[in-house]
């Protein structure tokens, strides 16, 4: 008994000390956020698009927030691991994570992933990579009409390579199938690099690719149509799907998110910092050169965009799961 009593005291003392320790920052509340370094979590491998964007923003964020910004990685499960860590973190504004749409919508629709789309508080969306359908220069299809005609002629004969299942590329292929009234043979790859390699080698007939990946190989490929509202500046001669009579817009959007229940003041502060960077003409020019479409959606707009896309994808997923 005596022994356990002593343990009880120790636990009590430790918890009081902890409570005081945690209470510390609350008492020093007169200093405005942020008072210490902020972690910028990247949920994909270093060197990828998300990482490069974080690196580009890092020094500018440090300048405008007046604190160090540390880029850290939590890679796995197509981003799911990092996002489930995000929603479990303290909503104090010291951990933020790069978010990707449609990933954060499609993953929870597919299975239990440790987070839900609604839990993530979007701060801003700063970049879009429209998806586009491309074939090799040596392919027999000169434009999207010929391509779709060939697909209707022999359903399920043309293979389209994409990155992953339940991904933007997969969903784009399914939507095109439905809208054009034919079938394709969708071949998933484990990422953009193996996808594009197999495509350049002629192992798949076509790809749904991210605009920035396709820009890199503009010399050897023919882009048939872009899944965006407007023509893509990288391929000014390529029509949109809409122009070609297929009402489809499909892109991968990148932004930044916070844990649920983050106070509004913090969201506002970070929103301002990210939008300032996103609206910088120099930054926008750099992004364009790399094949991205610069965006500057704030918290409310981002939230609305995610809600809109969630509704769209729910319908599509119902079809896949059938």
């Amino acid at each position, binding site marked *: 008994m005596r022994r356990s009593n002593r343990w009880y005291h120790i636990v009590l003392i430790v918890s009081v000390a902890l409570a005081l320790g945690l209470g510390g920052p609350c008492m020093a509340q007169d200093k405005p956020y942020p008072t210490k370094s902020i972690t910028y979590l990247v949920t994909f*491998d*270093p*060197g*990828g698009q998300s*990482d*490069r964007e974080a*690196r580009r923003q*890092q020094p500018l964020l440090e300048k405008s927030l007046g604190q160090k910004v540390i*880029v*850290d*990685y*939590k*890679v*796995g*499960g*197509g981003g*799911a*691991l990092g996002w*489930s860590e995000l929603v479990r973190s303290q909503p104090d504004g010291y951990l933020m994570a790069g978010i990707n749409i449609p990933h954060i919508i499609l*993953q929870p629709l*597919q*299975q*239990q*992933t*440790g987070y839900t789309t609604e839990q993530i508080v979007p701060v801003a969306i700063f970049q879009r990579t429209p998806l586009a359908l491309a074939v090799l220069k040596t392919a027999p299809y000169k434009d999207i009409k010929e391509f779709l005609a060939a697909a209707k002629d022999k359903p*399920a004969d043309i*293979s389209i390579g994409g990155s*992953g*299942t*339940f*991904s933007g590329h997969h969903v784009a292929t399914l939507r095109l199938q439905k809208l054009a009234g034919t079938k394709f*043979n*969708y*071949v*998933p*790859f*484990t990422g953009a*690099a*193996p996808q*594009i*390699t*197999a495509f*350049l*080698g*002629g*192992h*798949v007939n076509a790809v749904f690719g991210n605009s920035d990946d396709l820009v*890199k*190989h503009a*010399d*050897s490929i023919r882009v048939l149509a872009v899944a965006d509202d407007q023509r893509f500046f990288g391929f000014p001669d390529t029509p949109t799907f809409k122009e070609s009579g297929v009402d489809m817009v499909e892109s991968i959007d990148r932004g930044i998110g916070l844990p649920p229940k983050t106070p509004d003041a913090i969201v506002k502060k970070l929103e301002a910092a990210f939008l300032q960077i996103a609206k910088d003409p120099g930054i926008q020019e*750099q992004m364009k*050169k*790399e094949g991205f479409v610069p965006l500057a959606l704030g918290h409310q707009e981002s939230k609305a965009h995610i809600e809109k896309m969630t509704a769209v994808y729910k319908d599509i997923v119902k079809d896949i799961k059938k």
Partner: protein
Amino acid sequence: MEAWSSLLNGFAAALTPYNLLFALIGSIAGTLVGVLPGLGPTAAIAMLLPLASHLDPAPAIIMMAAIYYGAMYGGSTTSILVNIPGEASSVPTAMEGYQLNLQGRGGPALGISALASFAAGTMGVVGLTFFAPVLSRTALAFGPPEYFALTFLGLSLVVSLSGRDLGKGLLSALLGLLTAAIGLDPLTGVARLTFGSMELMAGIDFVPIIMGLFAISEILTNAEKETKCILEAKRIEWLPTWQDIKDTWAATTRSGVIGFLAGLIPGCSPAVTSFMVYDLEKRFSKHPERFGKGAMDAVAAVEGSNNATASGGFVPLFAFGIPSGPALAVLLGGFLMYGLQPGPRLMQEQPALLWTIIASMYIGNVMLLVLNLPLVGLWARMALIPFPILGPMIAVFTLIGAYSLRHSFFDLWISLIFGVVGYLMRKFDFPVAPMVLATVLAKLMETSFMQSLVLSKGSPLIFFTRPISIAFIVLTAVSVVSGTLLRRKARAQQVELEESDS
């Protein structure tokens, strides 16, 4: 001849003091990163990316490239000295090099691996210089069926890696495949064998597994035996002799060629190459019985092939902007940060930059040799440390290494659990190598198999109708049959020996 003059211009640019300095920084950083288990070139290059953005493209990329190929030099150190293979590609080095160390030949093994790294690495750069335009299309010739056939050939090595009992070897390989299946299905993203755990959903990285299987189980075994000192020999050699070099140069040359060719294929990880050259050397060797008990030519071949693969990987990177592994993907990110997109256009627009980088790779390899050789004697003295002190040190380094990979405590548990698994496997005489090989191959094998069948709409004929694929499948059959025959012969010899002994 055009290559010669471009290369000379490249040398002129790479030999400026500024560029030399960054080649040296990269070589030192690469050596360090290679020596520390767990921390690999990918993380190191990623950490230096923001720093690099303050530099001009040439010195920055020279430095990052040097980290990449420099890390291949250091990889053998902990494998040979304390049986910690820091990455999958050093596993065969650990299998042979550590045995040599126990016999007091750790110094020569380290020296030979530095020399082999230099020789084969330089051969790889020569290949990059003169054959890149001819061979670059190799990267594109490999589609899903070819990758599957390649991994199939890789898995057939289980036969020769199995040791005495083929059944146990197959079981061990099966265990490896099963372990690799944990996590999200690489293609469909469906969770498998995760039992609702978020940590398992991210999959089990093979580095903590390997560290557990080798280093932790080694400590457990030694603790059980109450080892005082890992050295078994009375006589210790510090440096390789001319005889060692004479014995290994052929293996180094072969591994340089094979390693370079394998580097041309993106997605073929250096681990696959190192197991393949290991197996090949066992067949070429005049004394195959030494394999598993400390074969110097195996150390040379494996370490050489790593470096040649590293150089070969620059061919698809420069030709198409295709990275053949995570480290080169980060390096590609470095190019992109400067608005440079490796590919045919960069070759035409900025040939001077590319040739400067290629020339710097010759220089970097010389620097690495000069950096690494004097350290050999120093490192080798570690074998003299009494085991009660060395053992805990190995444990600490292993666990730090396992943690540093993904900053996850979960990975610590993984390496401890696999330490116990490895200990039990040794105890019951199960070979560990087939399990490692299977873990490394599993993902590529599975994805390429599924993709091939999607392409062929379910027909397995796709593997037999494409030339490269069928070639690998024939090689697999040859490898399995000859491997089985060799096993029979070895067993017959052993029986004979045992009989003549009595």
